[in-house]
């Protein structure tokens, strides 16, 4: 919010130089963000937090400045010349029962000649970012900047029945506000009305028909207290935000309403001439009572970690308007009407502490048990996955948790889809309106972006949550997604590279043993995709080359390998156990098996392992050759490592075992040998 530094200084006795004043304000919590030269004065941009409407005006800020710099706030002095008729004979005010308006003060000035304001006033308004309009309106804006009370000037001559009523709007009632917008109202909104129609949106904006204009001669000046919640709800529903609503939403000072009304009436009479009616209308059904709080100086010291002399506590609270009275350790205060934020003793601690200065509090580390910190199992899990992917050489990306509905519809066909989609009620854009049910759409968009930037090989992963809505309430399981792409290699090579990464991650994360079953269509290519299942048949992952239709959706070429793993079935892998190191030399034997493609490697391997006997220490895949004769048969070469724990093996005995193995495999699987 903008403040004129010269104006602030005028409100203080013995104000320090601007630089010091700005520094002290910053120290006590009113951050002077920007100081720049305005017209005839420095202009400051001060960050006033939402809980401090009292400091959103020059006198309020000066009050803080006085305490912060040890100077004094000058009293507000002006002479009110009431020289007209009794106000009660000129206008009437009513607050309809149950309307959230705690006070309505009004004054009447007659015989005004509205014109431009004097230069000093225009300059001051301009410096504070307010556009000068005419002397009557400018006077109300000036008082807003000075005292923080939003005011409104009506052309009394245009108020039918010469009266105002604060009441809920009627259903469908219409009002054209000062900004020229015709608005349709409803009974949740509070309006100021005359005898027949709404003339202003209470606490937000006046109406166009009753505004001050060049021909106005009679002014009714409104200074009221509207309920914060009511103003806030109405302003939000109508999409409005004004100087007035900004303040009322944060809480108005009921006591200042009368003072501000007098002050503005005085200014209007001075600037626009006319005579001020005697007395003011003041509808205040339940006058304000101050809240009283007690503070213990010792408890404050214990809370702060700093001894603060009682006299200093009193001086600070006194300067801020809390009228402290001390007896012994106890300081009793009455919270002033302008401090809507102060309700409890903790709030008083803050008042004292911020003026003592946070810098004055000595830093002391708390003494606590030396128990080591623990990481939540979920963090342990996801970081195991992250570490495994990093160890596999992948680069981590973080993509949006919300995705395009079109991409989400594709996800519905995934075997891992966690449930019905959760949709945002108020997305920033429709392309980001559905919570992701898979990490793959985000990763594929990332892949596309990378390829567009000329990257040729991709090795990406994301660890994060996916979301599902539905009747059972929201769920957000943890996932790991992977995208790999290289320039070289056939489908088998690409698939095996991906599988290597997935198997490595699965082991490191502690996923249960995974069964790779061909599938995953329509996401994965029919000829190069797999669903990963646990022993009990639950799908916990998918891995393979992207199906052409899905690749096309993200404008990706062929050969992109993707995987997604559900991490919630994982358990921390057990601590590795040492296995005795073999002392005798191995005998390595390769075996090339010729078989039909219906026999997968997994079946061949399982049978070989079972038939190989106890002295086969290792069994691995070497290569596979597809016979070019059109038979669809393949030759798979396996490597067996024979070893005896207690002696060297002879080639003859290994040859005999190996021959038994071949016979056994031929019998069981009907395979041949090359």
């Amino acid at each position, binding site marked *: 919010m903008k403040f004129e530094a010269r104006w602030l200084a005028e409100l203080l006795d013995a104000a320090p130089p601007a630089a010091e004043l700005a520094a002290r304000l910053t120290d006590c919590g009113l951050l002077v963000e920007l100081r720049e030269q305005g017209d005839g004065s420095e202009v400051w941009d001060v960050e006033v937090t939402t809980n401090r409407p009292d400091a959103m005006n020059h006198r309020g800020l000066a009050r803080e400045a006085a305490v912060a710099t040890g100077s004094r706030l000058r009293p507000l002095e002006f002479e009110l010349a009431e020289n007209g008729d009794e106000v009660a004979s000129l206008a009437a005010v009513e607050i309809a029962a149950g309307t959230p308006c705690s006070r309505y003060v009004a004054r009447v000035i007659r015989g005004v000649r509205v014109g431009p304001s004097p230069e000093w006033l225009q300059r001051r308004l301009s410096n504070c970012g307010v556009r000068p309009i005419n002397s009557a309106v400018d006077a109300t804006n000036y008082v807003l900047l000075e005292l923080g009370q939003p005011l409104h000037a009506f052309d009394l001559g245009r108020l039918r029945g010469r009266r105002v009523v604060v009441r809920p709007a009627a259903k469908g009632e219409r009002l054209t506000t000062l900004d020229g917008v015709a608005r349709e109202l409803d009974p949740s909104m509070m309006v100021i009305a005359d005898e027949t129609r709404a003339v202003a949106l209470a606490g937000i904006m006046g109406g166009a028909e009753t505004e001050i204009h060049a021909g106005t001669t009679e002014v009714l000046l409104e200074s009221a207290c509207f309920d914060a919640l009511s103003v806030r709800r109405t302003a939000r529903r109508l999409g409005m935000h004004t100087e007035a609503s900004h303040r009322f939403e944060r809480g108005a000072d009921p006591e200042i309403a009368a003072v501000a009304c007098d002050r503005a009436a005085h200014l209007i009479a001075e600037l626009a001439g006319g005579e001020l009616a005697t007395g003011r209308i003041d509808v205040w059904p339940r006058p304000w009572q101050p809240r009283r709080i007690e503070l213990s100086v010792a408890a404050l010291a214990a809370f702060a*970690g700093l001894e603060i002399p009682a006299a200093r506590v009193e001086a600070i609270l006194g300067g801020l308007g809390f009228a402290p009275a001390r007896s012994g350790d106890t300081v009793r205060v009455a919270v002033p009407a302008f401090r809507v934020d102060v309700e409890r003793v903790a709030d008083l601690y803050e008042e004292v502490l911020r003026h003592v200065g946070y810098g004055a509090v000595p830093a*002391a580390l708390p003494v606590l048990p030396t128990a080591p910190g*623990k990481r939540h199992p979920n963090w342990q899990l996801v970081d195991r996955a992250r570490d495994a992917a990093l160890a596999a050489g992948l*680069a981590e*990306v973080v993509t949006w*948790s919300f995705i395009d509905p079109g991409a989400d519809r594709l996800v519905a066909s995934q075997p891992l889809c966690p449930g019905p989609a*959760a949709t*945002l009620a108020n997305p920033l854009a429709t392309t980001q309106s559905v919570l992701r049910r898979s990490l793959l759409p985000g990763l594929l968009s*990332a892949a596309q972006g990378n390829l567009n930037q000329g990257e040729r090989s991709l090795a990406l992963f994301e660890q994060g949550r996916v979301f599902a809505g539905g009747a059972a309430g929201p769920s957000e399981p943890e996932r790991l997604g992977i995208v790999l792409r290289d320039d070289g290699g056939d489908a088998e090579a690409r698939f095996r590279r991906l599988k290597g990464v997935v198997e490595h991650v699965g082991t490191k994360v502690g996923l249960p043993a995974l069964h790779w079953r061909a599938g995953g269509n329509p996401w994965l290519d029919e000829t190069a995709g797999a669903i990963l299942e646990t022993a009990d048949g639950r799908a916990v992952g998918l891995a393979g080359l992207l199906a052409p239709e899905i690749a096309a959706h993200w404008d990706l070429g062929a050969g992109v390998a993707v995987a997604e793993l559900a991490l919630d079935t994982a358990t921390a892998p057990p601590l590795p156990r040492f296995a005795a190191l073999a002392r005798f030399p191995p005998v390595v034997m390769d075996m090339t098996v010729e078989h039909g493609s219906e026999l997968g490697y997994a079946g061949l391997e399982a049978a070989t392992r079972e038939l190989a006997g106890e002295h086969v220490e290792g069994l691995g895949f070497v290569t596979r050759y597809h016979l070019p004769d059109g038979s669809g048969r393949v030759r798979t070469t396996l490597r067996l490592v024979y070893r005896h724990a207690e002696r060297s093996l002879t080639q003859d005995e290994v040859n005999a075992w190996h021959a038994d193995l071949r016979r056994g495999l031929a019998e069981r699987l009907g395979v041949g040998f090359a």
Partner: protein
Amino acid sequence: MSTARLEEVRRAFVAELEQAGTSADGVEKVRVKFAGQRSGKLKELAEALRALPNDQKRDYGRALNELKQEIESRLAEAKQAAVTEIRVKDPGTANAKGHAPTVAVGRPVDVTLPGLPVARGAEHPVHIVRRRIEEIFLRMGYDVEAGPEVEDDWHNFEALNIPPDHPARDDQDTFYLADGHLLRTHTSPVQARVMESRQPPIRIVVPGRVFRRDSDLRHSPMFHQIEGLLVDEGITFGHLKATLEAFLHELFSDRVAVRLRPGYFPFTEPSAEVDISCIFCAQKGCGVCSGSGWIEILGSGMVDPRVFEAVGIDAGRYTGFAFGLGLDRVAMLVYGIPDLRQLFAGDQRLTRQFA
């Protein structure tokens, strides 16, 4: 055959061994020629013994023995000193015997050629920063907690002293789901959940993804925070100050100055904005600190008694402090990343810079 023949052999042996030098191959050849089991000179000389007249046998035998010992000991010496010889087969390549596979050497390697790339994983900068901060607090005995990203109004707002229609809800414009849940706007709801589930002492940090309905250079609808909470008897504002100083010194440098300014958060009272002295310009004023010499780094304060009341902790007995900071902001600051949204574009060129 006589001892003269022995001397002749000895001389030949010495000469040939000398010629073999330190070549393992050469030494081996000499060994075969002189001490070989099948056809070595020594074997030949020993066979000649039988043919000698008896009177010469004694002298010859002794001399032969001496020669044998000499040859064997010198062979052993030479063998020890020998190195494997690399035989040049044809220009540019050579075989080192006993090594498989064959290593091609001979042509000088351009040692300025680049090394082959290693498959390095690269962690996202936000997570690098998260783990560093977790580590600092784990060392101070804080637990690292987790909680849901889809939250309810109670934990995200009401329990934290942000009732409906509170103006602070404007600052945290919220994404709502169709079913009334919301995306958490900060990690603080996990504080509320932890305090609801256990009694003090509580010492936690909570990292995680958060969401606000906002998007520009400095705001992203999705970002990351880490939140800290300590609740116990007798916790003071001075404890908060020291903890933040210790943390920020550890994260940045012991040389950074830490400044607490009064601020406002609905869930803390008093509240403090925390600045560090600019790490880029030594407080002379630069673009990063907008010339002020200070960088706003986190928000903090003493837990508002209303929050304790809402979650069932005795506000008369316990006090505590809380703080929170943006992980993305720290990453941007530390690594000089200008646009927050760039962190979530999935560009591997960004991540790879931090491998």
